[in-house]
């Protein structure tokens, strides 16, 4: 072909409009995503409260301080607990609901879809206000019901009690973002050709057999993406914790992102903001997550290889 013999400059000139079309995206990416990441990597080497320019060079001391901080490890534990419960429960519920709503004969399916998607379109600010009002102002009602049922005797301050706060955040977390997974699964189910099910029916396959031998394998690749998105989102949980408990009481619900936020902007009490320490914590966490995703990819690959070998 002629094209291959053309010089690089020539090919670039031919594709000049392609560059022009990609340019705005590249500019936004470099200025608002790549540059800030590079800049905050620089901050990790300084003790800096975020005002003026960083001058107090401390080397890798910030990383050492993060590793020595028990609150950081507590926050990491809470984040893993959140992910370990929210992701499986949410995906299980979302897949079940998607299978129900995907039935062709089901009427009002789009109405039900809207109902279960509602929390997704609701801002964390609104949810925070409403849930706090429900629990802190009317926790009495729930308390009275529990007392009448002889489940408890005594007053429970739901969001202010370390034993319950994290559980409530997990439940609200499942409720808040289930809708995304629901529509992802619905979209995935739509890509499965209808004639596969028709053919299976003709061959006498029941509902369960169709699910096991058509739906599951056809959803596998989409499913992996959905799991990844759910994991990424849950590991970055922030606003729901921030509006509901602000990491309290006594750091009982502090997750990694609220921990970083409190370091960067000054937290509860008289803690001074320390942007260097916050950036170090953020990078350390990022490295942990990247290491985890590498392990995950290796495991998935070996599973796929074993399956292929069968």
């Amino acid at each position, binding site marked *: 072909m002629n094209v291959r013999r053309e010089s690089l400059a020539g090919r670039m000139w031919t*594709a000049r409009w392609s560059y022009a079309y990609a340019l705005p995206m590249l500019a936004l990416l470099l200025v608002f995503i790549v540059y800030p990441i590079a800049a*905050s990597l620089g901050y990790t080497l300084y003790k800096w409260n975020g005002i003026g320019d960083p001058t107090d060079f401390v080397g890798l001391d910030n990383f050492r301080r993060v590793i020595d901080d028990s609150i950081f490890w507590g926050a990491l534990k809470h984040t893993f607990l959140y992910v370990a419960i929210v992701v499986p429960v949410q995906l299980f519920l979302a897949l079940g609901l998607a299978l129900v709503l995907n039935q062709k004969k089901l009427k009002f399916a789009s109405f039900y879809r809207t109902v*279960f998607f509602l929390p997704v379109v609701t801002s964390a600010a609104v949810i925070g206000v409403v849930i706090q009002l429900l629990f802190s102002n009317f926790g009495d009602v729930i308390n009275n019901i529990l007392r009448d049922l002889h489940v408890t005797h005594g007053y429970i301050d739901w969001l202010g009690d370390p034993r319950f706060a994290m559980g409530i955040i997990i439940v609200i977390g499942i409720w808040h973002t289930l809708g995304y997974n629901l529509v992802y699964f619905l979209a995935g189910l739509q890509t499965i050709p209808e004639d596969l099910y028709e053919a299976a029916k003709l061959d006498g396959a029941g509902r369960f057999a169709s699910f096991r031998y058509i739906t599951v394998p056809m959803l596998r690749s989409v499913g992996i993406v959905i799991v990844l998105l759910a994991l990424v989102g849950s590991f970055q949980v922030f606003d729901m914790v921030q509006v509901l408990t602000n990491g309290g009481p006594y750091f009982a619900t502090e997750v990694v992102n609220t921990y970083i936020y409190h370091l960067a902007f000054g937290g509860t009490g008289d803690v001074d903001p320390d942007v260097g320490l916050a950036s170090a914590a953020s990078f350390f966490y990022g490295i942990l997550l990247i290491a985890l995703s590498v392990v995950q990819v290796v495991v998935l690959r070996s599973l796929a290889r074993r399956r292929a070998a069968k």
Partner: protein
Amino acid sequence: MSSVATTVPPLSRPAAPAPLPARRRRRRPRAAMVMTHVALVVSGLAWMYPFLWTLGSSLKGTDEFFGRGLNPLPSQLLWSNYQQAWEQASFGTYFINTLLITIGTCVGTLLVTAMAGYVLARAPFPGRGIFLFLISATLFLPHGYTIIPIFDLMEKLGLLNSLFSIIIVQAAGGVVFGTFLFMGYFQTIDSELEDAAKVDGASFHQTFWRIMLPLSGPMLATVGLFTAISAWNSYFIPLVFTLARPEQRTLSVGMYAFIGENSTQWTLLCAGSIITLVPIIALFVMLQRFFVNGLAGAIKG
């Protein structure tokens, strides 16, 4: 809403009574369908309970708000809460700000991601691989608290305290995901139309703006909806960029400021929550048909 509670009505009765075995076979799925609807309505009501309670509370008087507890139903409808929230509590101003920011962010994100997604999918150029690698890598890098360098940058550019700064930062936040979705979608569009247009002498620009972009309706709706949801609801970026200018607050920021300033007017806060919710729910209801199709299109690719 209540009409939904009535379960499936039979679509049409067969003109002649069907033979018995056939009928029996049809009856069982129908009973299962009724059970499905009952389960969906009950769980749906529970799912929506916080919204119903907020809606009810936005129409209650303050005494009733505390007296009725978890009962969402108001005894009388106090519409004046909405008027007060809109005027006295400045929710009207916040609403306009949020609307402008959301429209700006959506238009910017859609243009930038559709153009980039198109050339990545259909008009390859030397360096495409490096470009793709770069945008994939940013998905895995920790973003952390990059708001501080961004804040510094905007300050140096003199863009601080403007709605424009909020729009551009929010648009930048969504470009990677949007570009991937558009790329996936454009890859699935049949190349025949594009080739025919080229044969007819259409330029690069005409091919994109007149043919490919109009064809990408479902993806425009999908990326538009994702962007609108996050722009309408975002709290952190508008908070940081409007600290010095209360009149530029968005609904989410204004709502929290309102709690700080008036800790007793909960019914106005509920009315404000409903004002915040209605437009974005309306948008979802309008676009949801395209939304699932658009996602399905991108997944196929």
